[in-house]
């Protein structure tokens, strides 16, 4: 699973461990899946024991949790929030809608494939996924981080033109400032 372990310095390993164990989540309640976040965080499932806690602003967040379908209107906000997050940053696509549009696959104002517009690190399937599935998704992300493979933010940086092109197809009145990190 982790092949190039030798090439990584000890500092990176420590840092990746810290990143893995402390995930500040910016939960973007875009769709119906947001209702699953509270049980995930509260006493029944308690995601905090894995170091996962909510962050109030994108500046402090590590993980952008996209909970469900993204309307064309909210896509703009999500992109904006994602771009305001500090590197390294991760996206978890939550629910079927982020994968293929789910039950909204033929809606005129939702997007179907999230990773056309944003670099998703981990998808969590289900409509909607149970908290167990969410935690499993986080565990997957942690593994990727530990391995140094959660590089969605690098992909976004490198393929910015691709993403921008797709984004601009959806968002017609493009008023966002330039990309920054």
């Amino acid at each position: 699973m982790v092949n190039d372990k030798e090439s990584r310095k000890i500092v990176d390993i420590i840092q990746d461990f810290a990143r893995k164990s402390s995930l500040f989540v910016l939960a973007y309640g875009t769709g119906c899946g947001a209702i699953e976040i509270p049980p995930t965080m509260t006493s029944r499932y308690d995601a905090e024991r894995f170091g996962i806690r909510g962050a109030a602003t994108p500046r402090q967040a590590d993980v952008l949790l996209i909970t469900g379908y993204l309307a064309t209107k909210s896509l703009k906000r999500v992109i904006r929030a994602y771009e305001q997050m500090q590197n390294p940053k991760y996206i978890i696509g939550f629910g079927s809608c982020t994968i293929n549009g789910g039950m909204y696959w033929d809606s005129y104002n939702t997007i179907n494939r999230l990773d056309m517009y944003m670099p998703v690190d981990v998808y969590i399937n289900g409509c909607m996924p149970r908290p167990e599935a969410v935690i499993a998704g986080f565990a997957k992300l942690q593994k990727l981080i530990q391995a140094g493979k959660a590089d969605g933010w690098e992909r976004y940086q490198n393929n910015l033109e691709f993403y921008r092109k797709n984004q601009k197809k959806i968002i017609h009145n493009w008023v966002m400032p330039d990309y920054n990190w």
Partner: protein
Amino acid sequence: MSNLVIILAIFGWAILTYLAFKINKTLGNVFVGVLALALPAYFFTYTPSDYTVSVMGMSLQFGFTSFASLFAMLVVVLSSFALLYSIPYMNKKDRLGWFYMNFMFSVGGMMGILMSKDLVSLFIFWEIMTWSSYLIVIYQGKKVNKVGLKYMIFSAIGAYAMLMAIVLINKWSGNVNIEQFFASFPNYSSAAKLLSSLLLLTGFGVKSALMPLHVWAPGAYTKSPMSYTAVFSGALSKMGIYGMALVAVNLYVHSNMPIMGEVIAWAGAITAVLATFWAIFQNDIRKLLAYSSIGQLGYIAVGLGIGTELSVFAGLYLAILHGLFKGVLWMVVGAIEHRTGKTDFRDISGLIKKMPFTFFVALVAIIALAGMPPLSGFVGKWMLYESMITSNHFIMVLFIFLSSTAAFLYCFHFLYGLFLGQQEDEFLKDVKEVPVLMMIPMGLISLSLIAFGTFPGLIFKPIAQAMSTLGFENVTWRMSSLTNAWGNSMFLKPANFMFMAVFVFFLIIITVVNHKKTKKVGTKDIANGGEPIRDEDNLHYSVDIYRPFYRVISPIMKYKVETFYKRISKGIEEFFQFFRRIYSGNGQTYALYVVIFLTALLILSSTIF
């Protein structure tokens, strides 16, 4: 050269400046500059000599006491800086000659006050100072009618109270000499003591804007050009403090009337609290600073009123310091007004981008004002608190603490509203840093504020000398440590150096670590729920920002002294409006009055004669 000649020279120079401006603006500016440089040059090299003039059978004496020369130092420094600052600041305004003439008149008036060794000449110079400042208050001519009138009326009330005191003192002491007044004061009857001191306090209290006589101050400070307000609030109001210190300390401390000292101190404490509250809710920077000035003068009054060695020392220190930092702050406001033309929080934001130097001096002055270590304001605050605690003014100390904590609110509002926050292009267009001639005064005073923070001994020395005039002999002071009456000490050097060392250490760390990956972004790029901010959006939050606090203290804020005065004056006017119907316009009625008067006199003649 006698001192009086210098005062007359200033007055003469004022008139010359006026004439010079009639000829040519540049020539006039040269005249202004010459005075600005000559004033400190003369003052710091002269040797005092006494001089006596005899007028109308009274002998008027002139000469500096070391107490007066402390304030004279402040006046000289501040006014010469303000004059320098005025040259670029006032550049685009008209009737400059008039302005500078009155400016110099008021400087001369202040010097005259400090030079007077008798009450009559003090009063004369006091009034010269008053009307010249009045003329400057109304100089800009925008909505000054009420403000000017208010200032004049309150000054008149104060001055006339003082005049009454002078007249009575002349009767009770036999002459108007200040020292002899103090010498003979213990022999006064208790009613005379109370009356003369209350009247004098009213007189001085008006100028030092003590509640409830402060009503004129916000308007007057606001309406005059900022370069003058720096002197107005920084030095001119200190004349009230000067008088109050003389009276308070000499009379109440040395004549065993501590109750009057308590009156002053309480007036000061209440002033400090209420004025600070008012300052918090202002949306105009000039108003904010005006109320803040009133509050700060309250602290000084507290220091003088308590009357222990440390408290008087603190009062004087704060007086000097308030002159300095408030001078800078008014100059900052002037700089902003000069560059943006606005003074309302609604119309300004994010100036740090365009005016970093101004921001820096404002920051220094604000820290000094807030009384926080490591700058000089803390020294004054420390001495004030310690003097209050060691002299068992434990309720008053709460008032002062409440006031100075509340002061943080408007300090933040000032810095944040003007310099920080959203950088709106519409506000910042065509704005640039102020000219060098405006930077120099602000910069130099700010430097002194920083220096006094660690080495307050630099101004402790003249203050200690001044204290000897007030009757506190042999005040001990050290260069950078403070001691209270219980022997507890505060060492400034380790504290400030420690603070700076830690600060610098972490500054290096935080700057170096991830240096390349640290990026500066504009203030439009903020986290606000993902909504991109367009350029035309104004998200600056600086108007009415202390609503919650207002809701807490609204029961107090509902009552304004001003309404009280308004009611009184309206009542008087209404009364005379009714009264003037005596002059009915009918000749017969007037004849009737004559007959009635005659009849009344005849009837009452047995009782009258």
